[in-house]
């Protein structure tokens, strides 16, 4: 068996006359954290659903553990852990019962399921919530419980569809920390996100998706080096106060200007010189911010959200 655990070739999906996924190809190595970055409607969730058997593979091919299928067979699902976008916890059961019952679905004997449930509650920092109702949990706690549930069968791959959407910063960092320790144990993580920071924090490799296509692939660092210049000046001025011909002036100097909705960004290879030039382009420095380019810049550039000004 190769060390590729997930592979897709020209994977497509059409709902009625809407082509949600337009033939994407990718491969995920064992032990990696692989990210799908894109905004809502990019095709991330569709791809995840095909992996864990909630959607059929009608176009192209998808392999999990070297096995291709139209609908993920139970034997493959037995090796996956799934954290869906919505918290579909069982409201009729308590916190620990949610885990125990889920273990039974995987065919764990009752005693073992109970034992494992308790271990995972401890791992996710939920020990003191063992007998709580689901209703009484905050969004962050629910999310942690969904992750604990996905680990009941000691999966080889954990699929996380927007694991931290809607969580506050503390809760998000805690989830990230737990995911890192899973990765350290050798579990393959496949996640979707629209948070750039999450992708940078967790992913070894990622694909940028937009309108059903993959636009770029690589490590966060590689993408930043390949697609954008290393330095950025954010111009915090209303568009009406941005000098005319700015684009031409910056371009003549050797930089680039991108406009995202009402914000203007200047890109250059040399940050200091870029900063020094602001005055002569008529940009007040107090309204500007110089920083290193990041994944967000890559994303905006690739998805065309940042129109070339």
């Amino acid at each position, binding site marked *: 068996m190769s060390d590729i655990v997930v592979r897709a070739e020209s994977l497509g999906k059409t709902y009625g006359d809407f082509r949600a996924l337009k033939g994407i190809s990718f491969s995920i190595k064992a032990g990696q954290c692989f990210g799908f970055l894109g905004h809502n409607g990019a095709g991330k969730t569709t791809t995840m659903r095909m992996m864990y058997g909630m959607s059929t593979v009608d176009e192209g091919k998808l392999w999990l553990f070297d096995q291709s299928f139209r609908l993920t067979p139970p034997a493959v699902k037995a090796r996956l852990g799934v954290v869906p976008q919505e918290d579909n916890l*069982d409201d009729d*059961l308590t916190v620990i019962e949610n885990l125990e*019952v889920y273990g039974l679905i995987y065919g764990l004997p009752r005693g073992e399921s109970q034992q494992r449930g308790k271990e995972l509650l401890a791992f996710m920092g939920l020990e003191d919530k063992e007998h709580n109702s689901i209703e009484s949990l905050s969004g962050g706690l629910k999310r942690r419980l969904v992750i604990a549930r996905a680990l009941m069968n000691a999966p080889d791959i954990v699929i996380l569809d927007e694991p931290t959407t809607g969580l506050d910063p503390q809760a998000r960092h805690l989830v990230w920390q737990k995911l890192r320790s899973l990765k350290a144990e050798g579990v393959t993580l496949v996640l979707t996100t629209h948070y750039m920071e999450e992708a940078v924090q967790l992913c070894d490799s990622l694909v940028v998706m937009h309108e059903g296509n993959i636009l770029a692939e690589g490590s966060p660092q590689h993408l930043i080096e390949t697609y954008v210049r290393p330095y950025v000046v954010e111009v915090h001025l209303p568009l009406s106060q941005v000098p005319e011909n700015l684009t031409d002036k910056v371009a003549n100097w050797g930089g680039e200007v991108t406009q995202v909705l009402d914000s203007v960004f200047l890109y250059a290879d040399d940050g200091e010189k870029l900063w020094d030039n602001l005055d002569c382009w008529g940009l007040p420095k107090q309204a500007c911010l110089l920083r290193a380019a990041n994944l967000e810049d890559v994303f905006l550039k690739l998805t065309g959200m940042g129109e070339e000004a």
Partner: protein
Amino acid sequence: MEAMRIFARHMAVFRKIWFTNIMFNFIEPLLYLTAMGYGLGTFVQDMEGMTYLQYIAPGMVASSAMFAASFECTYGSFLRLHYQKTYQAMLAGPVTVRDIVAGDILYATFKSMLFGLVILVVISVLGQVQSWWAVAIPLFLVIPGLAFSLLAICYTGMVANIDNFNYYITLFLTPAYLFSGVFFPINSMPGWAQAVVWINPIFHSVEICRALALGNINPGLLVHAGVLMVLAALLMPVAVRLLTKRLIV
């Protein structure tokens, strides 16, 4: 068998709610039994050689079982499918839609049998059971339990809105219940209606329950049981197909 894992989930829930659940399902048949049996019954001289209470009592067992299976696989299944997303959560595990449908049917059939049994105990205590054959009633209730839960889950698979269950109850269950031989013999109905009754599943269930309660065992009962079994067998693949359409896109 994977369906047993789904059933185990439902039983984990049932262990918490059994008391209120049984009480709720126990009161309604008891109301009918007293209002019809003791109330209306005083004006009825004789029903095929029985008192009116004796006549309707086995029908109460059959109908209680029918309502239990029907409610579980309409409202219960609908909530799990659309609100709680229990099915979706389970489907991420190593089970198929067929397992999930089978697990739900098993649970509804179990409840159907149990609620039928509760009413059977009540009518026995009231002295309305004439034969030891009656102990076979709970066992028999598995068959209509399967048929009614499958009918209900097929309907659940077809509707998008919880309000649609009003139609199922008002336009199907209630008429089926009223014209099933529970309250009056079907041979008092016009000939065409007597023919139509044969497609009414509760009619077959009532016939068997009454025969067992009276100890009136005859080969005709196999025909009634057969109709229900054929119905269940035909509906299972339909239910799986309908639920698959809802769950897997």
